């Protein structure tokens, strides 16, 4: 009999739901039967309501079972799981599951599929094709191709990636840097984490393409301390890439040097802001810098620096390998390509859904997400993290597109979609947004540092019923001051969740809904 092969997801999400214990139980169950098995460690496919989702290799292809608990293991093995036999947890071929079938997985094509530790498996799944292309094109043409693809930063601000790279390419400097923003502080987002823990070589490839293209010899990946697992997987991948000569003095045989280091954050949300991150890497307090100068001109240690989000960088290999036009063909308007939408919170089908821009919020929440996990009606959806607006049902026709969301007073940010059912208290959520700002403010500007504290007090008064109308007007004024008087988007955007809660859900503040 040929050796059995099992695929075990070991990203933090699957581990948090017990995949490691399931693996141990599986090892014991097979040992008892003298069955030799190969356990391949993967990331997650991103269908978290089915995790731990264990797959087996069969002559018909991979067959998935999930969600598997330790108590199911004996029964699964006895039922013939290793041959893909029926069982109540059998899901069939993962790629046939509607949630996966309806996606356009470009950036996440390999995530949850490949052996995340194996350079051979990476190459076998079209790894390094983008880097090879970049090296054959040369710097200027590579940067041009990235610009033409229409890729915009996936970290939140949506700035065209190619234009940023061009600025650094055109800025003279003996030393330049690539900084990868893996701070992923937004609640409701986990795409960066999934890539780092499921397909780390993609990020290494994307950063290497950036490095050899703009003339940077050194890259830093700034990973938040809340992601110990990402740090572990990325470090191992970097070590292997270095050993294989992908990184180093002659990176990938390009004749150019490029190497990577990881820097660990320390629990400050604001360090996701790019200039604050640069200060943090330099070993300082993570305070936001005034711009100009742009990081592209004077960034890390005062040198020209490309700073990009994990997903921006991890999308580049696919774009190089398949061409700018292929990427452009996804999306709508000025939002081109795909976006990993991260369904989170109280939603039935919780997971990552990569698709071209343009689905409506209603399609995302009701059709793809399947409504709430609690079975109660959806009342509010926060899109784009703690600084994103709350959307009520009557705005569910808004298409998932950077400009369309801006037009509705919201933002897409890093693509997190957090669903709340009708038990949510929106005054409490508004208060939380302000409180979060006061906890995380870097302290540089008064409207953010002091304003957020005043904001919490004011919302408390409204909740308590103290001069509600007057305090609501005061809150609106305060938000205005913060919006226009803050240096960065922490103080500047916190008015979005606060004011959207107040505007769309006044009854939760004890206020009367104004006629539309």
């Amino acid at each position, binding site marked *: 009999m040929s050796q059995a092969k099992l695929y075990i997801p070991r990203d*933090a*999400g699957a*581990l*948090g*739901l017990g995949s490691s214990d399931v693996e141990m139980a599986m090892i014991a169950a097979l040992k008892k039967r003298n069955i030799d098995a190969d356990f391949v460690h993967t990331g997650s496919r*991103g269908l*978290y*309501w089915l*995790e731990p989702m264990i797959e087996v290799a069969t002559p018909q292809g991979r067959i998935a079972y999930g969600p598997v608990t330790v108590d199911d293991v004996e029964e699964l093995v006895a039922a013939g799981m290793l041959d893909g036999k029926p069982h109540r947890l059998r899901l069939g071929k993962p790629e046939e599951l509607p949630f996966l079938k309806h996606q356009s997985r470009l950036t996440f094509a390999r995530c949850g599929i490949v052996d995340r530790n194996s350079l051979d498996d990476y190459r076998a799944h079209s790894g390094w094709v983008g880097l090879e292309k970049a090296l054959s094109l040369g710097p200027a043409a590579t940067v041009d191709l990235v610009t033409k693809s229409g890729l915009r930063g996936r970290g939140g601000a949506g700035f065209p990636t190619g234009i940023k790279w061009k600025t650094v390419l055109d800025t003279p400097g003996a030393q330049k840097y690539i900084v990868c923003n893996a701070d*992923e*502080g*937004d*609640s*409701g*987002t*986990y795409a*960066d*984490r999934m890539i780092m823990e499921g397909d780390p070589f993609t990020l290494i490839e994307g950063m290497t393409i950036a490095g050899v293209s703009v003339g940077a010899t050194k890259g830093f990946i700034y990973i938040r*301390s*809340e*992601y*110990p*697992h990402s740090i572990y997987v990325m470090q191992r991948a970097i070590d292997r890439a270095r050993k294989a000569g992908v990184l180093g003095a002659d990176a990938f045989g390009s004749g150019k040097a490029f190497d990577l*280091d990881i*820097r*660990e*954050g*320390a*629990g*400050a949300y604001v360090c996701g802001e790019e200039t604050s991150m640069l200060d*943090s*890497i*330099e*070993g*300082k*307090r*993570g*305070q936001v810098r005034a711009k100009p100068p742009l990081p592209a001109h004077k960034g890390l*240690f005062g040198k020209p620096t490309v700073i990009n989000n994990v997903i921006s960088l991890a999308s580049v290999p696919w774009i190089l390998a398949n061409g700018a036009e292929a990427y452009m063909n996804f999306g709508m308007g000025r939002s081109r390509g795909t976006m990993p939408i*991260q*369904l*989170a*919170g*109280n939603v039935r089908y*919780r*997971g*990552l859904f990569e698709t071209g821009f343009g689905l409506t919020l209603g399609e995302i929440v009701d059709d793809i997400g399947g409504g709430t*996990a609690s079975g109660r009606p959806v009342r509010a959806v926060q899109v784009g993290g*703690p600084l994103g607006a709350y959307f009520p049902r009557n705005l569910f026709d808004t298409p998932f597109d950077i400009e369309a969301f801006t037009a509705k007073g919201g933002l897409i940010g890093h693509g*997190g979609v*957090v*669903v*709340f*059912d009708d038990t*949510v208290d929106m005054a409490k*959520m508004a208060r*939380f947004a302000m409180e*979060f700002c006061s*906890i*995380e403010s870097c302290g540089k500007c008064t409207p953010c540092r002091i304003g957020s504290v005043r904001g919490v007090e004011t919302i408390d008064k409204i909740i308590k019923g103290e001069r509600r109308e007057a305090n609501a007007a005061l809150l609106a004024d305060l938000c205005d001051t913060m919006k226009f008087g803050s240096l960065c988007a922490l103080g500047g955007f916190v008015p979005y969740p606060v004011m959207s809660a107040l505007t769309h859900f006044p009854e939760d503040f004890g206020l009367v809904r104004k006629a539309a």
Partner: protein
Amino acid sequence: MPVPNYEPWDETRAAEVIAEAAKQDGACMPILHAVQRTFGYVPEEALPMIAQTLNLSRADVYGVFSFYHDFRHERAGRHVMKLCRAEACQAMGADALHKHARDKLQIGWGETTADGKVTLEPVYCLGLCACAPSGMIDGKVYGGLDNAKLGKLIDRARAA
């Protein structure tokens, strides 16, 4: 539940750890992390040592140390339990879960149980927002928490 193994404060050992981490560019954060990983906290005595290594003032180093939520000046309880208070976890009932945990532990946020076994801290998102509510104990992650699951983890933490 395994207990994290921290070394008692030792100046020679600290000098070693600091020198090793100081090899990196922008070494202040890596040094603070290394010291905390070794001793479980950043002892007061370590600050002037770090300052001297980096050619900074003690106030500079203190400024960096105090800016970041992660660094602590005192030893924590034997286990550090971080529970996520951010939006996606709130949407799945984190507030009620946290109240249950605080009642069971009889402490508030940032406090340590009287027996010194558990320190409870808030965290704002662990990237487990599709497996909410979530938490992390001594660096190990847990998703899909409810009163029963968390209660069991608390019992295990207190037993060890």
